[in-house]
């Protein structure tokens, strides 16, 4: 089965003043229908820029994006409209994702109008999508305005608005980070069910590995613009290969009093000046760095078990 979305060698260079920031460097990924891919990393690792490029909300500086078998990298303006209907973003902050003056009905009808869905189909599609996000009976909700809804209810509307054009791909950037703990679980369950029932390809962006474990089978770990590790989420958490992934996993607190409180296997801080020249971008924070790490940047390679890692410490398994 061909992937819903594929990206090859995505690059993003930002220039401001005299500074050049290579925000994303050579990121490749593929997501099939019914599959969810997680992208994790800290602020500034390039995960949000990658997601925005996948949706063509940010112009790639290099690389290719293929959606349902068609190269869409060069498409502009109106030529992107069919793609926009089929690739939707779930906003992070439900409190400012909706127009405060619109009723919920109008917020949901807007994308249908934009994508040319005939008016007589609107009511039935709105009804169906509201049932999917469990805002029923719909009559109780459709004429309300955003300020009359709680954060959890708003996020359901935001999800409904993303689903209503009938997308094949949804991209969610920190979909529950603004919500209260008691309602996060409900939204995550809805996202999972929608993906399974509609056979969506999903990309989740988060700094929270616990959330990623819950919703994504496969995960990319990014550090300073590059993918440093990729693999099945459970393997990556239980047996991280890259030293950065190890630190990231070890840093997540668990809701049990018995837990590992040993010092994190990482040096320094992300804010320290980025390293000049070649070599591994993580070497100044790595406890295991050796001479080769400064001389040569490790590429993302397939290692044991079909997992991928960009680290000189891992033996190449292709022989």
């Amino acid at each position, binding site marked *: 089965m061909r992937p819903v979305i594929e990206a090859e060698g995505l690059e993003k260079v930002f220039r401001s003043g005299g500074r050049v920031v290579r925000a994303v460097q050579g990121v490749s990924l593929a997501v099939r229908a019914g599959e969810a891919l997680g992208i994790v990393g*800290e*602020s500034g690792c390039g995960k949000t820029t990658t997601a925005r490029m996948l949706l063509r909300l940010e112009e790639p500086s290099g690389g290719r994006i293929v959606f349902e078998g068609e190269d869409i990298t060069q498409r502009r303006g109106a030529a992107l409209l069919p793609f926009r209907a089929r690739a939707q973003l779930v906003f992070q902050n439900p409190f400012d994702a909706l127009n405060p003056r619109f009723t919920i009905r109008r917020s949901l009808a807007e994308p249908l109008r934009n994508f040319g869905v005939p008016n007589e189909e609107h009511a039935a599609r709105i009804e169906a999508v509201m049932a999917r996000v469990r805002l029923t009976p719909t009559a109780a909700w459709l004429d309300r305005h955003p300020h009359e809804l*709680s954060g*959890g209810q708003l996020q359901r509307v935001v999800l409904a608005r993303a689903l209503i054009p009938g997308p094949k791909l949804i991209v969610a950037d920190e979909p529950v980070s603004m919500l*209260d*703990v*008691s*309602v*996060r*679980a*409900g939204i*995550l*369950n809805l996202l999972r069910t929608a993906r399974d029932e509609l056979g969506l390809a999903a990309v989740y962006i988060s*700094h*929270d*590995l*616990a*959330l990623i*474990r*819950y919703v994504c089978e496969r995960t990319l770990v990014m550090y300073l613009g590059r993918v440093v590790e990729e693999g099945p989420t*459970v393997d990556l*958490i*239980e047996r991280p290969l890259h030293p950065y992934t190890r*630190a*990231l*996993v*070890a*840093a*997540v*607190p*668990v*809701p*049990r*009093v018995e*837990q590992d*409180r040993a*010092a*994190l296997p*990482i040096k320094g*801080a*992300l*804010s320290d000046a980025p390293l000049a020249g070649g070599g591994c971008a993580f070497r100044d924070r790595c406890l295991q760095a050796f001479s080769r790490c400064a001389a040569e940047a490790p590429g993302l390679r397939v290692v044991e078990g079909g997992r991928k890692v960009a680290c000189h410490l891992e033996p190449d398994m292709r022989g």
Partner: protein
Amino acid sequence: MLLTVRNFQVHYASRAGMVRAVDGVDLEVPAGSIVGLVGESGCGKSTLGRALMGVLPEAARVAGGSVVFEGRELVGAAERVRRDVRWRRMSFIPQTAMNALDPVLRLRVQMLEVLMERGGFRRGEALARAEGLFRQVGLDPGRLGDYPHQFSGGMRQRASIALALALEPALVIADEPVTALDVIVQRQVLDVMRDLQARLGIAMILVTHDMAVVAYACDRVAVMYAGRIVETGLAADVLERPRHPYTMGLTHAFPDVHGGTGELVPIEGSPPVLIDPQPGCRFAARCPFAMAQCFSETPAMVDGVACWRASEAAALRVAAAMPATWARA
């Protein structure tokens, strides 16, 4: 006991009426312990933290109860007593470090201000102390001459911790100190706080919505719901064997990075509006185990839990682990 809070009340004026944001809170903080104050937004935990420190916003006021800190009553105390306590004996770390730091002043100036004006240190001593404080929280003393905007979020949070510790207070109240930080930085900041508690015996109240942060960093926990503490005790007991259904709900609502991938269990509904609270247990409307009595009579805090069905906690815990229990009909 370092801090003893009894029947504490904080009211907010709002357009819709008076909100009882903190409504009869009892809380104890032993010297040298880290107490997690946990609950969802709007439960009153931040208001409680700010009220104890005496830094409430304009619309809020302490409406009753008692706060005894190091043997002194703070409710109704003269401003002179408050000033004496603030920073020197009790200090505050806000959620975003930018709120604790003045953006137009170099960090050195801000540290010296606290150390010299409030602490009475001479300039030379104060400078040496500022450097030591930076080192203690893992910052390079060479960067005392920086402005806050030259620091990353994690570094700013460390600087605001250094500021809070400047006069070696007995108690630090930290309001969601790591919520806005990335996971590695979050862990490093929590480790700084744990280290200071261990080495200097500083007690802390850590206000958070995150049960995992409580589990990682706190000795004791107080679970707050709708303006009241509903369960309190040693973190090990409360997290492993919660006795209040709200605490049980919170423990199942979170994904666990090393846990399974089974259904998470949301707590349906939302907390009540605290303008004219109904009698009875405030969690009753969302509680899958509520009985008639729960809607009419307020359960008192007995042995660390305020629930009419506390004696059945073991059986309720089994039921609470099942998603069907929490599903709305």
